[in-house]
């Protein structure tokens, strides 16, 4: 009995020490494990100034402009986290799921004019899955709710 208890204690202590060590390591690494910076973090100066980094957020609706045609399209759009926005310029192919109001992660550098020049743009999608008719119904209900709220605010 006693030997087994000793082994059990050893095991538990070992695991606790390991967990504590892992915790400390991840505290130290902190947000360096994050794949991208948000527009707010960029505005707060947390993103590197002269280095490639990734900017992530939503493509601000109404901000997408395309010049040119086909594969050499030059696109400009705003990336927002609904608090701050960053302007992005990108030349190249945009992923299929890239769209206004959808998630995006752009890799590149901040230019001197405050515009982020991207060399790669990835679409980030959320965890929602539903058939088109459900999506349409949700959108309709959302629009009606917004209209109702707007109507209710009028005197």
């Amino acid at each position, binding site marked *: 009995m006693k030997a*087994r208890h000793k*082994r*059990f204690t050893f*095991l538990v202590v*070992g*695991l606790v020490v*390991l*967990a504590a060590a*892992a915790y400390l390591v*991840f505290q130290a690494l902190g*947000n360096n*494990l*994050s*794949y*991208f*910076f*948000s527009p707010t973090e960029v505005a707060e100066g947390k993103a590197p100034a002269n280095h490639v980094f990734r900017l*992530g957020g939503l493509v601000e609706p109404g901000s997408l402009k395309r010049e040119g045609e086909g594969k050499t399209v030059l696109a400009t759009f705003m990336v927002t986290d609904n608090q701050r926005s960053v302007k992005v310029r990108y030349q190249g192919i*945009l*992923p*299929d*799921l*890239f769209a206004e109001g959808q998630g995006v*992660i752009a890799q590149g550098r901040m230019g001197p004019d405050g515009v982020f020049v991207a060399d790669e*743009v*990835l*679409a*980030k*999608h*959320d*965890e*929602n*899955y*539903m*058939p*088109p008719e*459900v*999506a*349409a119904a949700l959108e309709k209900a959302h629009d009606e709710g917004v209209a109702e709220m707007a109507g209710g605010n009028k005197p």
Partner: protein
Amino acid sequence: MSSRILNWFKFSSPATFYPLAGKIQKVAAAIAVVLLAIGLYMSFFVAPTDYKQGEGYRIIFIHVPSAWMSMFIYVVMAFWAAMGLVFRTRLSFMMARALAPTGALMTFIALWTGAFWGKPMWGTWWVWDARLTSELILFFLYIGYIALQGAIPDVRRGDRAGAILLLVGVVNIPIIYFSVKWWNTLHQGASVSITKGSSMSTIMLETMLIMTFAFWAYAIAVAMARVRLIILERERETRWVAELAEVRG
């Protein structure tokens, strides 16, 4: 009191567990075949198109079950490793060895289907974000465990070394799971959670759950088959093996 302990530990003897494992294997295999048939049918003919990802999202019916299994199997292996270290039951270590290749397989499937899903949707086969990187680390842990034990000829030392590796690596499991919450990742958040419910249409969720149970049954069947092989190998010099029906011929 002592007779109750005896009953429980009876199945920690390879000789008594061997026939039980055979029965479990048969039942689990049958369940796996049925559930896979139903699940695959539902994946293609019952689950509707996704509003954003079209038919491409159907990969989820393999990707999520295999990812869940990759984590779950590792935790079960770590559990058996702990049991073996504490109670010195050899069968515990055999169970861990039996699960490893299947766990590695599930991890590979999760990574492979993830890449094939990411390319059309995200625009890339791979990124080094926290979720993908930690799942890749899990794959290396499985391979490392198998390789380590293959490299140690002494069975007891191999059991012990492997067990320690498993327990050290178990910290990776919560990291994989919470990565999408703790850090900014390209990989999206959980579609299914105990606390928040689900962000999938019911029929899509049901299909995914059936595939998950199918993969679970498959893993059990394969693990039982493998542990029986390990038992036969380790116990080959014993009388009870010599007297097995399949050996006598």
